[in-house]
């Protein structure tokens, strides 16, 4: 596994991204643009689930409108993230914030697909307001932990 990673990380394409002057800034910029769109769609949906914002939009319709952008943005973030990772895989595998970030990312996606989207199919009044607040709060906490863990990679071993 490590051999394969080493081979890939030494391939011409990855070396170009890693070592050219603007390769890494460009990929990191794509990562941030993707993050902006992804977390904006998550934020808007969670605010609506908690009945704190976007009240002019029916929940199911809002989710349907947001879905292609959430899926597109998470794809962009993961693809650019893989490119960043492959530049220096050993560094990331040894990094505690990176491991935490991947764990939180897995949880956030599972939580979103498994629970958050289930809430969308019931009418907003159909479930207890407090429960909806908790689900929205947990979703936001997980996604923003992913972001903060990502930021911590540069500062924490």
């Amino acid at each position, binding site marked *: 596994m490590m051999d394969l990673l080493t081979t890939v990380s030494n391939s011409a394409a990855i070396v170009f991204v890693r070592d050219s002057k603007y390769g890494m800034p460009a990929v990191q910029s794509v990562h941030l*643009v993707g993050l902006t769109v992804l*977390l904006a769609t998550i934020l808007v949906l969670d605010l609506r689930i908690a009945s704190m914002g976007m009240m002019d939009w029916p929940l199911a319709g809002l989710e349907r409108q947001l879905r*292609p952008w959430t899926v597109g943005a998470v794809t962009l973030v993961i693809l650019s993230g893989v490119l960043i990772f492959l530049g220096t895989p050993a560094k990331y595998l040894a990094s505690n914030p990176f491991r935490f970030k991947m764990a939180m990312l897995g949880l956030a996606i599972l939580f979103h697909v498994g629970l958050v989207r289930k809430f969308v199919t019931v009418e907003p009044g159909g479930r207890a307001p407090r429960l909806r607040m908790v689900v929205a709060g947990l979703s936001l906490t997980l996604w923003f932990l992913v972001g903060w863990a990502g930021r911590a990679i540069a500062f924490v071993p």
Partner: protein
Amino acid sequence: MSLLAWCQWLEHTPFALAISESTWLFPLIEGSHILALPLSVGMIVLFDLRLLGLAFRQGAAATLLHDVLRWSKIGFAVMFVTGGLLFVAQAGKAYGNGFFRAKLLFLIALGINAAVYQLVFYPKMGQWEPASTPAGARLCAALSLVVWIGVIICGRTMAYQF
């Protein structure tokens, strides 16, 4: 005092040094700056997508603007405060940086773009048909999308050069 000298002085004030030399303060401010992106720029992007007919087609643009603007105000407040603190901590280095200068110019352009939208298109939004957006308003949205992406690129790239 020249602007460069002022920036260099600013960077060495005790307040600026307290930020740049602190183990936790700088990463914390920088992280807040980045993670306020979805709440600020992200909300504007959603509205731009609506004007371009790429999302939220079912509802009125005026309603969406009202919904997202409430939240983006908080996001932009965080952005300006954290961005200001980051600048203070690195003013001397930022002054001559091409990406920092481009970012400032882009932000000014976005301000003008938003002002044009506010004056020309905003007052008539209530009369728009749900499915039709005037070409001028769509142009504002396209400009906003492209230039905001430019701001993010410049912001990320300048950090590599310090």
